[in-house]
């Protein structure tokens, strides 16, 4: 998290801390599902076999404390079928679900986040919060941090990518947030965490995106998996279990 601040206990109680192929994030859904990015489980440009252990921690803002609380064993991993590990510039379907072996007991430091149900959550300029244990000021974070970012116009992001002569796929199943003029951004180690928006109507926090990819960190747009497009898939995966 670049340009953000330290989170307090209970600010982002859905935040998961993962250690799979390196540090990552996730979000608690219900009481036994972790939403994360597929590329944290199946990284692109990864030569070694995909048999890393999946360590998931919940319930604290301190890395040390969250690990002391113990890991949560995983029963099942579900990767979206659109995800292509072998395509470096394509983060389409960058979404995965981890089913916990055991349900977690909810409390002030451990609560799930809701999912979106309409397009207004992606209105241009809507402010959201991204949290994570990723890199901050060129250092690996030892505490959870967060940053507030605006949803950006699609066209602006496309132009920005074109200007950088990038061939990365920016599909309708993604959205962009941040601004090249802003320092604030998500960064490596934040992947899998969610872009959270507060819905004033229901007074609930809704996860509208998953930290997916970007071109470096800070002074640019970040790209997020658009969760509204995957709600049906998520429900289906959960209901099957």
């Amino acid at each position, binding site marked *: 998290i670049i340009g953000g601040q330290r989170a307090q206990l*209970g*600010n982002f109680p859905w935040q998961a801390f993962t250690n799979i192929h390196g540090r990552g994030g996730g979000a608690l859904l*219900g009481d036994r599902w972790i939403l994360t990015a597929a590329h944290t489980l199946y990284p692109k440009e990864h030569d070694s076999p995909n048999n890393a252990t999946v360590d998931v921690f919940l319930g604290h803002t301190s890395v040390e404390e969250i690990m002391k609380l113990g890991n949560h064993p995983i029963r099942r991993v579900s990767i979206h079928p659109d995800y292509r590990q072998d395509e470096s510039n394509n983060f389409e379907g960058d979404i995965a679900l981890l089913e916990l072996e055991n349900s977690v007991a*909810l409390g002030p430091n451990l609560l799930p986040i809701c*999912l979106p149900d309409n397009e207004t959550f992606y209105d241009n300029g809507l402010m959201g919060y991204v949290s994570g244990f990723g890199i901050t000021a060129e250092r690996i974070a030892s505490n959870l941090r*967060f940053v507030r970012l605006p949803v950006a116009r699609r066209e602006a992001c496309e132009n920005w990518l074109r200007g950088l002569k990038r061939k990365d796929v920016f599909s309708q199943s993604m959205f962009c947030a941040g601004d090249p003029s802003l320092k604030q951004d998500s960064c490596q180690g934040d992947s899998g965490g969610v872009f959270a928006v507060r819905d004033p109507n229901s007074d*609930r926090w809704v996860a509208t995106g998953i930290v997916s990819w970007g071109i470096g960190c800070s002074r640019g747009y970040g790209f997020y998996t658009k969760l509204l497009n995957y709600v049906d898939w998520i429900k289906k995966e959960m209901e099957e279990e």
Partner: protein
Amino acid sequence: SIFIPQKLFGEVTSPLYPKPYPNNFERTTVITVPQGYRVKLVFWQFNLEPSEGCFYDYVKISADKKNLGRFCGQLGSPLGNPPGKKEFMSRGNKMLLTFHTDFSNEENGTIMFYRGFLAYYQAVDLDECASQPNSVEEDPQPWCQHLCHNYIGGYFCSCHPGYKLQTDGHSCQAECSSELYTEPSGYISSLEYPKPYPPDLRCNYSIRVERGLTLHLKFLEPFEIDDHQQVHCPYDQLQVYANGKNIGEFCGTQRPPDLDSSSNAVDLLFFTDESGDSRGWKLHYTTEIIKCPQPKALDEFTIIQDLQPQYQFRDYFIATCKQGYQLMEGNKMLLSFTAVCQDDGTWHRAMPRCKIKDCGQPRSLPNGDFKYTTTKGVNTYQASIQYYCHEPYYKMLTRAESSESARGKYTCTAQGIWKNGQEGEKIPRCLPVCGKPVNPVEQTQR
């Protein structure tokens, strides 16, 4: 004489009938029917020369050594002595018919021709039982000493109870060593009652009725058995046994009290010595169906269905419990209860009890808990609990149409199950509440 072969019916006619009979003729026809029958004879046609006193031509009928009449003339005519429509009956199985004609049939110088007679006879059953004995009979028939039973063509004898028909088929000798009575009621008496009973008797009267019935004995007047002033029943005794157990020994002239044997098997032994002229005894026995005690519930929760004012052998009753209570037989739970009244007047099962249904400890609710809205820790019928979720992190999931007041409320039902009005037996679920951090981020500096 001509003998007609034994038949049950036949006819007898004058010679040459219907042609005029010859003169100077006499013939006796012996009509015989089988033993046990009598002969009945009637004339259908009768045309003989009439004469004063039937001196010339006549028909003479006789039977049992008696003359039944002498006849001549014509039917319907006052001359002579025609037999008319008279039926001639013998007492035995034979009848003699003699037909006699003189040397001529001339009237005022004119020769008359008379056709003769046509008679029919038939065998009629002899009621031997109605006939009086006659010591001067040729073939004396010994009559029955006790009872006579007539039938067509014969008769047979039988004896009073306590007597046995002898080999002669007529005389009866006292025999009462194994008299058996099985009817639901009846009368039993000493031999010859109310006349003096015979000496040297060893009588055994057994009453055996269906199980489930109990015998009552009632002695009638007169009651007279030889006795002694000082010694109890030394000469003749009447002993009564019920199910093999002696319930009394009686003699004298005092009628014994009514006896309730409490048994379906009674034996009466009657012994008499070589002398005495007491009139004996007679009793009327009846049966009554065995009864069982009136069933009574052991507690206020037991219901006896269709309670009857009285229960007797083979009757039954069904017991159930009030709603919310369980039938128990000892420690065993019953699905139903029936008791049958036995032949000894007892119920085949003891009355059960009803114990309040217990739903047991309520199931724990994951991510929630429950509290008792009735007495804490009591899980019996009509106890009530309220499930709740650990809010604000969890919220109870119920049916859309369930009311707020009923949500999570469970009652111990009559079936012994915790139940909610809408959810039924299924306990509710506590689902996570999303997007409601207890401590949401709030930024101050702008």
